[in-house]
């Protein structure tokens, strides 16, 4: 029995070692299989993302294209309206008082149409914003950005746009001072023409009335600029508040 013990032990250990080797092999095989599966899945995901990205890109291009088309259409309509207005004004120079009245009415209507056009532009901008929002949401979902990060990014974009608007409003102020100088010049010219008897008293009076009317409108416009400036500043504060709200939310 004692003689048999060592060989038996040896056989036992060899068996144990081979079993361990077999187990190791199986483990390796399983690991390889998992790796292969992962690789396949990764490729599939990459393909899917690529297709989605292409889809989003196409959508974005489509919106851009539509917007550009709409803009050029509006531009064409607007320039046509301007031409019509010019033609009416030309006609007004040689028209009788009654005809002038009718032409003025026509001009008014044309301006009304212009305002409608502006309204339509604004609505299309709204639609574009909506589409852009949808794309951003799709992008957010794909890139795995959290709602919070997305919101913060949106707030940043809005702040930049408002900054641009503020700069634009400041330029409007320049327009007011330029127009004031132009009006002053027109007033001096009218008086000069009256002195030189190039204008009748009636014509000079009517011109001065027109100058005063435009001046009044300009004053109103200046007030409105101030008002809009203040409103935009408040809007910036509102955006900052919304941004703060988003920041407070936990990811």
């Amino acid at each position, binding site marked *: 029995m004692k003689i048999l013990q060592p060989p038996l032990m040896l056989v036992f250990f060899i068996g144990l070692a081979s079993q361990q080797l077999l187990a190791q092999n199986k483990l390796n095989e399983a690991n390889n299989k998992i790796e292969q599966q992962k690789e396949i899945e990764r490729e599939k995901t990459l393909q899917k993302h690529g297709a989605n990205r292409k889809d989003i890109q196409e959508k974005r291009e489509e919106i851009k294209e539509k917007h550009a088309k709409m803009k050029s259409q509006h531009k064409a309509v607007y320039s046509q309206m301007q031409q019509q207005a010019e033609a009416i004004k030309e006609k007004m120079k040689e028209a009788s008082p009654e005809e002038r009245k009718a032409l003025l009415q026509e001009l008014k209507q044309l301006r009304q149409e212009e305002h409608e056009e502006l309204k339509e532009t604004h609505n299309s901008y709204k639609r574009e914003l909506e589409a852009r*929002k949808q794309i951003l949401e799709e992008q957010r979902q794909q890139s795995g950005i959290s709602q919070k990060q997305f919101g913060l990014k949106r*707030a940043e974009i809005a702040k930049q746009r408002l900054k641009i*608007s503020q700069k*634009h409003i400041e330029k*409007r102020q320049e327009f007011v001072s330029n127009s004031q100088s132009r009006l002053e010049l027109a007033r001096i*010219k009218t008086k000069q023409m009256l002195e030189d008897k190039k204008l009748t008293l009636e014509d000079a009076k009517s011109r001065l009335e027109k100058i005063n009317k435009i001046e009044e409108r300009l004053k109103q416009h200046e007030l409105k600029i101030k008002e809009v400036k203040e409103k935009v500043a408040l809007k910036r504060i509102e955006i900052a508040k919304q941004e703060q709200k988003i920041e407070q939310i936990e990811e």
Partner: protein
Amino acid sequence: MKTIFSIVFFMLTISLTSCRETKTEDNNNVETAVDSIQSIEEETVKMVEQLDQEAKDIDQDLQDLENLDQ
């Protein structure tokens, strides 16, 4: 033992549900904030466009006035 286990399970379920609810609420809050930001932006654009249109009209009238001399 069974009772303790069921209590723990119950508590876990409640905490998970409330966590999910908070997450949904947070997402809704962000969405509302983003919507507000968007409408603020829109209102600003509208105001600036109106201002532009008004300026354009005034400029046109001024041009008409200046053209009277020519």
